Every structure is written in C-alpha cells, then in structure tokens.
C-alpha cells in the first residue's frame, strides 16, 4: 500500500482530500434534518455511497466489466430512487473508472488508439440515442415506463450472467484466418508488448463492419439503461474483431469512457443528473478505478468473476419481479 502511495502520489492526495472533505462535512455541516432524513443520515448516505462506489469500481475492474453493470441493477432492484436518476448516475459510475484507467492503459500501449477512435463513432451515436430514448420514456410513461425498464434490464442481466458463465471460448491471441476487404483496407494492424510472454504480439483487427454495427447496438443499450457497455465491448472486440483479450479489455475501458461521455450530456443538460447525489459515486469510481487497475495483477480474477455472476443472477430476479409486480399488479411477498 505504501509502495502504491509512493508510485501514485495523486491517488494519495485524492484520498487525503476526500477523507478531510468528509470529516469537514460531518463536523461543520450546515445541512438541517428533514422529516425524511436526519442531517447525520444524509452524511451517512454520501459517505456510504463513496465507499460502495469504490468497492464496485475495484470489483468491476477485476471482473472486467464497467461499474454500471453492478450499480444500476442493484439500485433499481433494491432502492426507491427514481429510475432516471439511477440511470444517469449509472453512466457516471460506468465511465469514471474507464477515464482514469485511460492514462495507464494508453501509456503502456495496451489500448489501441486507432481501434478506439474507429469504434468510438458508432458507440457514441448509439449511446446518445439510448440516453435520449430513456428521457423520452421517463417523461411519457411514468411508472409503467419504470416497470418496463426493470423488466427488460432483468432479462438483459440474465443474458449477461449467462454470457459470463459460458464465456470460456474467448481467445487470448486470436489469429484472423480470412481478413475481409474493408479490414485490410483500413489496415488496423498493431503490435503491443506482452509482459507475460516477454515478447511483442502483433494482431490485425478483422470484421470491422459487423463490429461497428454491434457497437451501435451496445452504445444504445448502455446509454438507455445507464449500464455502460463493458459486458459487451470485450466480447465484440475479442470474438468478432479478433483483437487479443488484453488489448480488448484495455481498449474497452477507454472506449466506454468516450461513449458514456457523450451519452451523459443529455442527462446533465436536462437536470437528470443531481450533482450532490452523483459526486460520491464519481469519486469512488476514480479512487477504485486506480486501485483496481494496480491490484489486478495480484488477485485471482476468477474468484471475483464468480461473485459477479451470482450478484447478476440475484439482482436480475429482483428486477424481473419488481417490474412484473408494477406492470401486472400482483405482489410477491418473499422478494
């Protein structure tokens, strides 16, 4: 830990600033209690949000997904917070760990800047359309819209969890057999240094057109549900476009940050992102993102992945039940 503090002084400054800030907020609070919450309770919500967000960021980085995949379903399933607010904050959670990891990944040459820029265009367009659709749905359909979102998200989570369970077919260093014409013309060939092999690895991105179309869909789903799209970006890059797993994982974080940075503006300008509520979640992602990226090598990612799968299944059940309860007017007392 001390070594980490010495290597990344900005993380230390950030942590000290956060601790001092929350201590000051507790001691010199000018916030008054209401009928709903005491002043201490409000502080506790913010501090707990920061800690929970840090934990989510570490687990998300170790599990190879964006934090939104955990934040949005858990909040939608287990709290009363408005769905639009959860989805906008979910985008903050999905993007900020990706933003801070962009620096180390780019400097190490693990994220491919040309690949990122090519994929960024469809993912941004999809994400903005998804965010706009979410705001329209919330404004026009109210509680029914919320129920539909919960139900659809529950189904999507089951699909994502199954994808993780059956995800053994990923290949670390895919070799493209038949490079298609467009991929050849774009010439997205790159070489990166593979530490575990102590040698450079060369790859050539393949099937760039279907890959681009898939990113349009991934962007829409991520922007609509406030999930980000980390669960889908790595498989598309690795399985469809023949990008090595490590480059796919690193590029995914950078790509998600770009896609979500575009998707979040409609939420910000329409007031659907509340600063005080989103701030601890953003800070937790920054701290957890840096921590997660640095402890990744020392922890068995397989174990974290198993926890992630169980969490996704449990949350999906809760979401489907809550959505169905509102939509069809029945009650499931056990859940």
């Amino acid at each position, binding site marked *: 830990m001390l070594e980490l503090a010495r290597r990344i002084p900005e993380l230390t400054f950030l942590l000290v600033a956060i601790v001092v800030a929350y201590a000051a907020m507790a001691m010199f609070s000018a916030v008054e209690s209401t009928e709903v919450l005491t002043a201490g309770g*409000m502080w506790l919500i913010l501090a707990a949000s920061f800690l929970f967000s840090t934990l989510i960021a570490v687990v998300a980085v170790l599990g190879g997904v964006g934090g939104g995949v955990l934040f949005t379903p858990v909040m939608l399933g287990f*709290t009363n917070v408005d769905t639009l607010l959860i989805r906008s904050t979910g985008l903050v959670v999905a993007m900020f760990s990706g933003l801070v990891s962009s620096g180390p990944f780019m400097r190490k040459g693990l994220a491919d800047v040309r690949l990122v820029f090519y994929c960024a265009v469809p993912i*941004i367009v999809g994400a903005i359309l998804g965010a706009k659709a979410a705001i329209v749905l919330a404004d026009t359909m109210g509680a029914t819209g919320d129920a539909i979102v919960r139900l659809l998200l529950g189904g999507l989570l089951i699909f994502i969890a199954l994808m993780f369970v059956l995800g053994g077919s990923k290949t670390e260093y895919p070799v493209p057999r038949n490079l298609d014409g467009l991929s050849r013309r774009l010439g997205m060939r790159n070489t990166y240094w593979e530490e575990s092999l102590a040698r450079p690895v060369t790859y050539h991105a393949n099937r760039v057109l279907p890959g681009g179309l898939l990113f349009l869909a991934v962007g829409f789903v991520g922007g609509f549900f406030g999930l980000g799209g980390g669960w889908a970006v790595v498989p598309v890059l690795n399985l469809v476009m023949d990008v090595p797993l490590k480059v796919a994982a690193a590029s995914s974080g950078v790509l998600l940050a770009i896609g979500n940075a575009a998707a979040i503006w409609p939420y910000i300008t329409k007031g659907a992102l509340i600063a005080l509520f989103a701030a601890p979640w953003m800070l937790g992602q920054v701290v957890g993102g840096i921590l997660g990226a640095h402890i990744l090598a020392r922890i068995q990612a397989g174990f974290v992945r198993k926890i992630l799968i169980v969490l996704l299944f449990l949350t999906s059940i809760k979401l489907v039940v809550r959505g169905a309860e509102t939509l069809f007017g029945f009650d499931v007392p056990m859940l």
Partner: protein
Amino acid sequence: MTMREIERRLKEKAEHVEEALEHEIGHVEEMLEHELERPTVPRAAVAYGDVVYWGTILGSFITILGSVLAFVTELNFMEPELVLSAIWEGRSVDEIWQDTVGERPDGHWYLEHLHRGDGLTMAGIALGVFVVVPGMLVSAWLLLRQRQRLFAGFGLLASGITVAAMFA
C-alpha cells in the same frame, strides 16, 4: 590428491563457470533483443491518456471542493437537505427540481452557479466528462501529423458528435 587430479578438477570447475557465464550472457542478450523489439507507443495514444487522466483528477478535486461547500455553507442552488430527502423518498427528477428550484433546467445550468456548492460539484463532474474532447482533439492532431488521416478523422468526428451532444 595428486597434482593431476587437482588440475582436472580445476579444469572442470572452469568449464562450469564458463558454461554458466555463457548462459547468463545469452539470457541478457535475449532480454536486450526483446527490449529493442519493444514497440514504441504512439504519441497520439500517450497524449490522449495523459489529457484524460489529469483532467479527471482535476475534475475530482473540484467535485470534492464543491461537495464540501454544498454541505458546510448555505451557498447552494438547490438546498441539499431537500434534494437528498426527495431522492431518498423516490421522487422523480421533475418533482425534485420543482420542489427545490421551481422548474427543471434546460442547458448547462451549473455554469451560472460556479460560486455555489452544487454548481461547483456539477462543474467538476462535467469537467471530468468533458476532458475526452480535448483528449481526442490532441490525439487526432498528432495522428494527422503521422499521416494517419482516416483515424484522425474518426477522432475528430467522435469529438464533434460529443460536443454536439453537449448542446443538443
């Protein structure tokens, strides 16, 4: 032990040392060879990563400052106790704005409230979100200088769409 035996043993030891040295030299040569093969990271990638990383850290510090101001002073656009209670109660975004300010904003409301806690907090988050635009522009410019026109174009297009989303 005869002189001949001593001579033989010394010779054997010298051979072992020689072998070990050769092995080590080979290993070092191999490492150096790989080091030389280590691909250089494009400046466009490093520049993008640095702009985004430091921009996010700066945005985080502004967000921290804003959060403290919002909690320890009464300088706020929306009263924190009302906002947090409304969120906790599950009120909609529309209701939260109506109860605190009167109407939902349309645009970059925080820019007019940078001297207030919640305005500054929102500005810090917005800065963290915005940094991808200068990151992509700097990177696209460097790609252009390396005659990677197509990918520079993708970077410019991506940053252009993001800027359009900010004002749509």
